[in-house]
């Protein structure tokens, strides 16, 4: 406990990024993630790094593109509407195989929506996040500690696979404070022989590019990229299982929804209901194995989401619809209560009897 400090999730992300060797940050103000920019504005000048408030989210993601292309660790952050603006850049980063870390502290949508917590950008994040065939690695923190540790992991994975790693958080995760420990063993950035940082007349010139006008070649690039994605799906999926050993009902949720769900599971257990929680930590790659396992033994799965039901599709795919999967949700910036989730669990516990 001695090394723990109390920090907002947003600040924990910013500090973890700096610890991970990120010396360049570009952002644009938008609630509920602006603390990240404020923290970076304070810290970056002191460590000889760059903080720049860009003229737009579009400019910010393209500044990220420039720094990444030059071979440095770099980050930007925003909230839902701002991520939509960045989606052009996300696609170009993918097309040029550039590593970057992008934070989405989700708020209610669509459109300008509201500024309360939401998980309704799940499709946008896990299905690519822009035009064209691509994926981002998407990490879904369930605590302030994970806001920090998954940010560090995001930098490592981004460099390892030359991809964007997105932290898919929400307003609650960004705004809440919890004790957090910030001592990390950070894997140093790998050599980047592809970087456009000047040839120094020592090598052939490098080109960062996502244009490929010959379809046969572009297809080849896409196939190769998806080979890499396959490897990531096989090796990088992360998940926490809670009281699943003897569970007859599984509830599944990530981020803030998983926190509410954990309380509901505990309450239900007190009533003698055999229920457990599956909490994905990576939502792309989606951790299919625990769901496949659950599908063999539980008689019902409930997904708890702050959306109209997005992760539920991945759960159905992972379980191949072997068991019924139903949604327990709030939307538009509302958060399901422990009671709501508990009622849902009780509903299916009765049915099972």
């Amino acid at each position, binding site marked *: *406990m001695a090394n*723990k400090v*109390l920090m907002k999730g947003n600040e924990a992300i910013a500090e973890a990024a700096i610890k991970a060797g990120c010396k360049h940050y570009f952002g644009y103000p938008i*609630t*509920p993630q602006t603390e990240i920019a404020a923290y970076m504005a304070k810290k970056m000048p002191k460590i000889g790094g760059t903080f720049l408030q860009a003229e737009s989210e579009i400019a910010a993601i393209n500044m990220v593109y420039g720094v990444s292309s030059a071979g440095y660790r770099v980050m930007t952050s925003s909230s839902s509407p701002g991520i939509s603006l960045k989606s052009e850049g996300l696609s170009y980063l993918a097309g040029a195989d550039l590593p970057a870390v992008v934070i989405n502290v989700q708020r209610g949508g669509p459109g300008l929506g*509201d*500024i*309360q917590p939401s998980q309704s950008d799940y499709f946008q994040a896990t299905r690519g996040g822009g035009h064209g065939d691509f994926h981002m690695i998407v990490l879904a923190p369930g605590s302030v500690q994970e806001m920090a540790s998954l940010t560090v992991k995001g930098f490592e994975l981004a460099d390892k696979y030359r991809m964007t790693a997105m932290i898919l958080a929400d*307003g*609650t995760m960004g*705004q*809440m*404070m*919890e*004790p957090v420990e910030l001592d990390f063993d950070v894997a140093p950035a790998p050599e980047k022989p592809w970087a456009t940082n000047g040839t120094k007349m020592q090598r052939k010139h490098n080109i960062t590019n996502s244009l490929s006008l010959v379809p046969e070649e572009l297809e080849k690039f896409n196939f190769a990229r998806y080979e890499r994605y396959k490897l990531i799906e096989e090796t990088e999926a992360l998940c926490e299982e809670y009281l699943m050993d003897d569970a007859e009902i599984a509830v599944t949720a990530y981020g*803030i929804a998983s*926190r*509410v*769900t*954990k*309380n509901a599971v*505990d309450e239900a257990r007190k009533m003698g209901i055999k229920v457990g929680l599956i909490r994905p930590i990576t939502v792309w790659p989606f951790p299919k194995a625990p769901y496949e396992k659950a599908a063999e033994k539980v008689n019902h799965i409930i997904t708890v989401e702050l959306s109209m039901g997005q992760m539920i599709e991945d759960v159905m795919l992972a379980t191949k619809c072997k068991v019924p999967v139903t949604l327990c949700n709030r939307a538009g910036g509302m*958060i399901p*209560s*422990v*009671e709501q989730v508990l009622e849902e669990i009780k509903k299916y516990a009765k049915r099972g009897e």
Partner: protein
Amino acid sequence: MKTTKYLFSGFGGQGILFSGKFLAYKGLTADKNVSWLPSYGPEMRGGTASCGVIISDGSIGSPIIDKPDVLIAMNLPSLDKYESTVVSGGTIVLDSSLIDRKVERTDVNAVYVPATRLASENGMPTLANMIIVGKLLALEGETGSEIIDETLKKVISAKHADMLEVNKKAMQIGADYKE
């Protein structure tokens, strides 16, 4: 396993978020698990402000507080809004110099502290919040402990070190106050 849920609520500018932060830090200093969640958005720009603090021996699930064990109400709208949510047997501490009605619930422990008046009488008009916190800790039997000193050092930045003693004094005034 003990878990206590505190809800602080009042006007923006009353130090609501700071009081909650103090309590959360106190929990951390005492090696507990803690969470602190503010209301955020337009209301933090001058309207009502609130934050929820959970202190627990065990792990904390949701940081969202629907049913507080303790409500600290610094204005009437806060009391009106949250009185009914407090758990039966819970506590409501309120600033009686700003709230001119009594707590209607009979199944909760109501504590009246004229914090704003005490603050201005003692030349510390911005510290009504800490007077209330002092009272709250006294109720929990926690005055004058080393943990409080240590916590104050954590929540008050070095730049404002001169505020340390006056915060302590405010908490003492709250602790000493008898209805």
